């Protein structure tokens, strides 16, 4: 049985929330680390 997925839109809001929940902390962590890295080039 093969059921190819067609385009999906109803979950766009859920998708944004899910990615924000992991993306925002990750971006914060990268930003904080980069401020420390700046000492290397300062």
């Amino acid at each position, binding site marked *: 049985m093969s059921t*190819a997925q067609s385009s999906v839109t109803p979950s766009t809001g859920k998708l944004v929330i899910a990615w924000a*929940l992991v993306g925002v902390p990750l971006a914060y962590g990268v930003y904080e680390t980069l401020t420390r890295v700046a000492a290397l080039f300062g």
Partner: protein
Amino acid sequence: MGWLDRERTIAPPGFNRWLVPPAALAVHLCIGQAYATSVYKTALVKHFGASLTEVGVIFSIAIVMLGLSAAIMGTWVDKNGPRKAMFTSAAFWASGFLIGSLGIFSHQLWLVYLGYGVVGGIGLGIGYISPVSTLIKWFPDRPGLATGMAIMGFGGGALIASPVSTALLKMYDPNSGATGWVASGESVGKLFLTLAVVYLAYMMFGAFTIKVPAEGWKPAGFDPAKVRAAALVTTDNVSAKNAVKTRQFWLVWIALFCNVTAGIGILEQAAPMIQDFFRQPDGTSLASAAVAAGFVGLLSIGNMSGRFAWSATSDVTGRKRIYMVFLGVGALLYTVLALAGSTTTVLYVALAFVIISFYGGGFATAPAYLRDLFGTFQVGAIHGRLLTAWSAAGVAGPLIVNAFLDAQGKPGALNAASYQPALLTMVGLLVIGFVANLLVSPVDARFHEPRPGGVRSEEPALEA
């Protein structure tokens, strides 16, 4: 608990597969805290009146338990599905922090070993492998990209945990800001309690977001014929029990072990190493403590970004070729680092950054490599068994580096030349890994699971 069963997590028609990577990331970002233990290491040394080694054992136990639980529980994870696995991982990881905090508040170091080390370590192992096989099934067209995204989270978790933990320790300790301040044990205990609650909530989000694809699902426009075209990519399946009987499994194990051992060699010593490399004849170093801290941060970024970038690239180049780059180019870069790394800081930092990106890339590409060789049937369980290479490297890497450095002199008196024997040993290891990877060939058909209607005559013996 039926609501955790695999059958209850089958995606309905129209489910967006791009919801799966953030679910996987939610788990990996939490367990990635394991790389941020240095934040409170000194505080625990002072609190327990223990040595650095005694406190370091907490992390070592956790990494050994990670490898063991991933190897032992891999088949259970594949059978029960990602939701139950993530839920279990969250329970163990949060309990590890709770028991650890009890140990801190009651001044019982053994309770921290048991809590963070053993219980938390089990959570690490189950959590690490929990989304891997599901991601590979959702992204048959880009397995490297999918697993790279999740495993990148393990590298990224420390980037978040480190500044957040520092801020919380300052908040919980009334003496923060004093000259020569070291966080109190009580503040570390409170930090553990906080992390337990936050990580439990985040991992539950992952557990209740993840879904497995329905039987026979494939992404729109995906042509399985393209997968068949690649020489090392099988469309057959090998069970975990049979995979460990194949030469290919152990060749990949050796390649991963060599790659991780070499990477840990730099990661473990990162801060003192850059200062030693640029030590002047009068004993001072051109690299200050702030520069060394910046260097450690840069390596964390290299580790994290390498996991995503190299794993995603492997979808285009193939897994064997990308491992040839990790190990072959890695050996070359390590040689330059050993012989000319002290020439300029720019060269040193650039070399170390690329080498560490290869270290991360090796981890993230491994599940897709296993998928190519053994199919999707029990890839999570096979991956779990492969992670024993990580545990072994976690012991071997620091042992090699520390043994060579101990023979060269005392910390603070070392220079670039002191590191050459250790670094050149890592070059030798990388060459061994390169040869092992070169020898990887398709798995013999006698190890394949029977196809529907087909029969395999006998249990395959260990491959010669």
